[in-house]
């Protein structure tokens, strides 16, 4: 009885392996529009979903897109639940300690957002600052932000570059509140539980457009430093073959204009890199 049961169990397990043995499994979150999200029929859509199919065509491989909650994304990759991450994940030094990244395929600035009428609206800062080597204007902007955000609750999605930036202390001591998904951050920004929120600027404009809520961007846009160097494909460190394959595919897709085309379709501007 036990023998037959364990045999049956093994057969079930092995069936799932053989089905996906030579496909590349790509993990995405499905809750970070316009990078990746789900439509009304529950189908995965978005910039990265479309780009993933394009890259797989260039690699001449079959792919499966696997859904994974953001907070378990890197552990799931390491545990081999899938082979690559395409989930709006920025290339940062911290993440590179655990996994490798392909070259970046898109880049997008981060920004603070508040509700219209907030005291944090219309801060006196430059349009954008780069934190890799902050110049005088950038340092001044950080000071302005530090003063404005003191004691305020700023909401971010957990384990993101946005959380890292707020935790770094560059804008002083703020009340950082972390959420499982960007959807939840948006909800609580609109409900007034958050004084401000920090995420990719498009995440907010996408939300404002679809929900009709008066969400506005404020302060400078951020890039460099804690915000990383663009978004790339995350791959296990020992998987150099796949890493090279992705890099070559990204080269081809960029040369043929696929990345710009898909990016413009989803972002409304060319976010490719």
């Amino acid at each position, binding site marked *: 009885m036990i023998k037959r049961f364990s045999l049956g169990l093994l057969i*079930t397990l092995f069936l799932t392996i053989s089905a996906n043995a030579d496909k590349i499994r790509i993990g995405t979150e499905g*809750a970070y529009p316009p990078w990746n999200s*789900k439509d*009304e029929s529950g189908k995965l859509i978005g910039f990265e979903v479309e780009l993933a199919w394009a890259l797989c065509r260039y690699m001449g491989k079959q792919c499966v897109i*696997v859904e*994974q909650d953001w907070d*378990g994304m890197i552990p799931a990759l390491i545990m*081999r639940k899938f082979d690559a991450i395409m989930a709006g994940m920025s290339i940062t030094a911290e993440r590179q300690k655990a996994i490798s990244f392909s070259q970046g395929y898109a880049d997008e600035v981060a920004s603070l957002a508040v509700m219209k009428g907030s005291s944090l609206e219309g801060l006196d800062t430059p349009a954008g600052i780069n934190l890799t080597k902050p110049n005088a204007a950038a340092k001044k902007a950080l000071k302005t932000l530090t003063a404005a955000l003191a004691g305020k609750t700023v909401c971010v999605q957990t384990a993101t570059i946005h959380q890292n930036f707020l935790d770094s202390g560059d804008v002083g001591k703020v009340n950082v509140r972390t959420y499982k998904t960007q959807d939840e951050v948006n909800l609580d920004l609109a409900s007034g539980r958050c004084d401000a929120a920090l995420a990719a600027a498009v995440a907010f404009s996408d939300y404002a457009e679809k929900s009709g809520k008066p969400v506005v961007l404020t302060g400078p846009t951020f890039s460099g430093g804690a915000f990383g160097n663009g978004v790339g494909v995350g791959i296990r460190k020992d998987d150099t073959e796949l890493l090279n394959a992705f890099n070559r595919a990204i080269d081809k897709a960029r040369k043929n204009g696929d990345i710009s085309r898909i990016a413009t379709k989803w972002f409304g501007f060319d976010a490719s890199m």
Partner: protein
Amino acid sequence: MGLLAFGDTGWGDELFYATLMTIAVSITAMFIGFLFALIFTPLKLSKNKFFNLIGNSYTTVIRGVPELLVIYLFFFGGSGAVMYVASIFGYNEYIEINAFITGSFAIGIISGAYSTEVFRGAIQSIDKGQFEASQVLGLKRFVYFFKVIMPQMLRLAIPNLSNVWQITLKDTSLISVTGLVEIMRQSYIAAGSTRDPLFFYSFAAVLYLLLTFLSMKLINRLEIKYSRGF
């Protein structure tokens, strides 16, 4: 009500399938739980101290740690453990366990700890005289167990097993972390996509209430059927 429309425009069909998934996972988990209980109940009742320790550790640890942590551990460690076992037999490829099996096992292990306690209590409340009676009659041990103990144990256990079923059913709401699309995850996705969490979470609550209500009706019938003769 457009939100609940079937087809590509609403979430009706998705939620319907998600409800079926919740039922399927609950039943599978309950069954896996029974298998665990079948192993651990004798261990818990054993006079051997070592077996006893194993049996007690299982129920104590599983019932003493949040379900969410057990599920996380299973989700992250499950395939690793299976691969480790497979590597002992010389199989080194990646083994993918699908979300349904992962989820059912995680909930099943939890459910099994509660079932074990119920079976233990039921067996212990069976009159000792019956054991002596079977000995006098010269019944073999397994005949005694399957023909004398089991029927009585099941009858005594049914009311408490209905509690275990309720716990199991509700615990399935936590396996959304494994990516399995059951009621809770589907509501979560729908709430995120439509930005209407109040509607979808309330609807999820109604679905769970319906499931608990209907299953209790069913169990009550079983109870009446099996308590005939008492």
